[in-house]
């Protein structure tokens, strides 16, 4: 038995298997009008040596937090366990887990060797008396242990929901401190759950709206470093930045990468008029994509790179439009009451998230790419700037509270409108941007 399991793990390092098409009870359809969260258990991972006991407990804690944080799962507390998992390779006592109503059971083993961390896990469908998918093994660095936990949780989430995971991802955002009229802003990056915050710039000048490259290795943002807003590209690993070319006497902002990773779409303001342009990062070549006396801004590519959604007040108020990536005629897609801004195309390509202002309130909403099936997910004094989780099922955004003591923080919400919750950050925070899943 032991030999069989070991052979399964060979060659599976850092690879997730495709989801099994199992139609047992262990299945969550995210689109359902759910839901009673699915109870699961994650006993502490079995340590290879006594020195690995702590990390085994820490890994289980993060796996559990990832799953519970979706609102789709509920942890069975370890105090309820009838038996523990002391041997990763021993047969699971299904009856003990049925008795505590743990429908899913995640078991794991952990070992460390120098700076290398190895994590194995298995997922069991308790009420079917069966393993769901094969065991997987991940290796990484000891300092990067949280990523190992996120990878396990992603695999579990993916197998049970049939959706891609999103836990092994990062968020770049603007960290804010100080009162409203003297607010200091600096770029920061953190894990999706708020852990491992790192600052990428100081707060000596205003920085706005960081956006990840398709591979997550670079971030575009807007900074007032030279006095006027200009676009910078920052290498996340090296924390090195450079300013992009800019026409003299103009202002540029609202950049986003094209899916090809070498074109940037952005807004450029000249003589008080704001239009949409693209730039090749390598050559600095700029091409104008809209020409109207109105404000055209907040552009975002479709995932196939063929179209751009943006906001314009050409009709008299802010509304959403879609045009070919090369420019040309734009089609208005928002028609509801109120003003629409900051459209962002879902990574799945099926929806567009936006900010809506109506009757003095702000909302985060989603609609189909043709503007149909508009759905508002939130409402508050000021909600703004949605960004998609890599699987297109969760949205993060910034919420600012009202009044002189107003403070901005990050929140996430399912595209169903469920599971609205704050994301912990050390200071105030705004302008979140979610990375793709990490390699």
């Amino acid at each position, binding site marked *: 038995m032991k030999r069989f399991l070991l052979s399964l793990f060979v060659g599976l390092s850092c690879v997730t298997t495709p989801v099994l098409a199992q139609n047992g009870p262990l299945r969550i359809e995210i689109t359902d009008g759910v839901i009673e969260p699915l109870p699961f258990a994650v006993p502490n991972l079995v340590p290879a040596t006594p020195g690995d006991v702590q990390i085994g407990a820490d890994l289980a804690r993060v796996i559990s937090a990832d799953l519970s944080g979706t609102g789709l799962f509920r942890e069975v507390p370890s105090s309820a366990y009838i038996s523990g998992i002391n041997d990763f390779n021993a047969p699971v006592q299904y009856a003990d887990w049925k008795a505590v109503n743990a429908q899913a059971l995640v078991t794991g083993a952990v070992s460390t060797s120098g700076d290398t961390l190895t994590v194995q896990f298995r997922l069991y469908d308790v009420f079917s008396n069966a393993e769901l998918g094969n065991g997987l093994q991940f290796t990484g660095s000891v300092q990067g242990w949280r990523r190992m936990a996120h990878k396990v949780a992603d695999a579990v989430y993916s197998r049970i929901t049939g959706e891609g995971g999103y836990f092994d991802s990062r968020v770049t955002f603007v960290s804010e401190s100080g*009162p*409203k*009229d003297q*607010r200091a802003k600096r770029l920061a990056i953190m894990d999706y759950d708020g852990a491992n915050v790192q600052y990428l710039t100081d707060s000596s000048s*205003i920085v*706005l*709206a960081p956006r990840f490259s398709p591979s997550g290795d670079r971030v575009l943002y807007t900074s007032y470093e030279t*006095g*006027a*807003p200009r676009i910078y590209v920052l290498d996340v690993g090296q924390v090195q930045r450079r300013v992009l070319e800019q026409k003299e*006497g103009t*202002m540029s*902002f*609202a950049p986003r990468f094209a899916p090809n990773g070498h074109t940037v779409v952005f*807004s450029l*303001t000249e*003589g*008080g*008029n*704001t239009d949409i342009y693209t730039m090749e990062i390598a050559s600095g070549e700029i091409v104008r994509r809209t020409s109207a006396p109105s*404000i055209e*801004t*907040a552009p975002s590519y479709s995932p196939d790179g063929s179209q751009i959604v943006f*906001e314009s*007040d050409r009709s008299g*108020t*802010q509304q959403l439009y879609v045009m070919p990536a090369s420019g040309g005629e734009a089609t208005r897609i928002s028609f509801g009451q109120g003003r629409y*801004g*900051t459209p962002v195309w879902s990574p799945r390509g099926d929806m567009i998230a936006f*900010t809506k*202002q109506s009757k*003095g309130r702000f909302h985060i909403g989603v609609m189909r790419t043709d503007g149909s099936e508009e759905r508002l997910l939130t409402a508050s*004094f*000021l909600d*703004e*700037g949605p960004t998609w989780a890599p699987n297109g099922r969760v949205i993060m955004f910034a919420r*600012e509270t*009202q*009044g*002189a003591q*107003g403070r901005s923080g990050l929140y996430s919400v399912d595209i169903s409108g469920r599971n609205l919750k704050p994301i912990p950050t050390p200071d105030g925070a705004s*302008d979140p941007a979610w990375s793709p899943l990490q390699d």
Partner: protein
Amino acid sequence: MSILKKTLMIGAMVAISACTNAGRFGDDAYGSGGAGSGAIVPGSANDPTSTAYFNQTVGDRVLFLVDQSNLSPEAQLVLDGQAKWLMTNADYVAVIEGHADEQGTREYNLALGARRANAAREYLISRGVAPNRLKTISYGKERPIEICSEEACYAKNRRAVTVLSAGLTG
């Protein structure tokens, strides 16, 4: 750099910081300074060639309606005064800062602030100020001066402010 020019610049800096204080602690700045009545202290608010005079007496800012960049008759009156002053005091250049209130999305407010700054600039040019003396910048909703979440504050934040600096050569 000539000594005169240095003095001018320092004077302007002092005036700007004095103005900042005046805005925030108005009574302190004016209340006890009555000793030199009538005398013109260079760089002070009663020196008509000073930045302080421009900011306080001419008026350095114009306000806008929600989501608008049209200049009201009141705003045009202020800008007429600014144009006149700038024509008289040819050593100064200006950056016109456009701002929006917090009730809007970040990118749109940046673009809206740029529209407002540009509206003020175009008006000053139409009144005879040389275009190369006037630059614009937008801060969107990033730099409110009033922090309450009510129209009383929003109205003051929707502004275009003409910020002077000395140093135009030739």
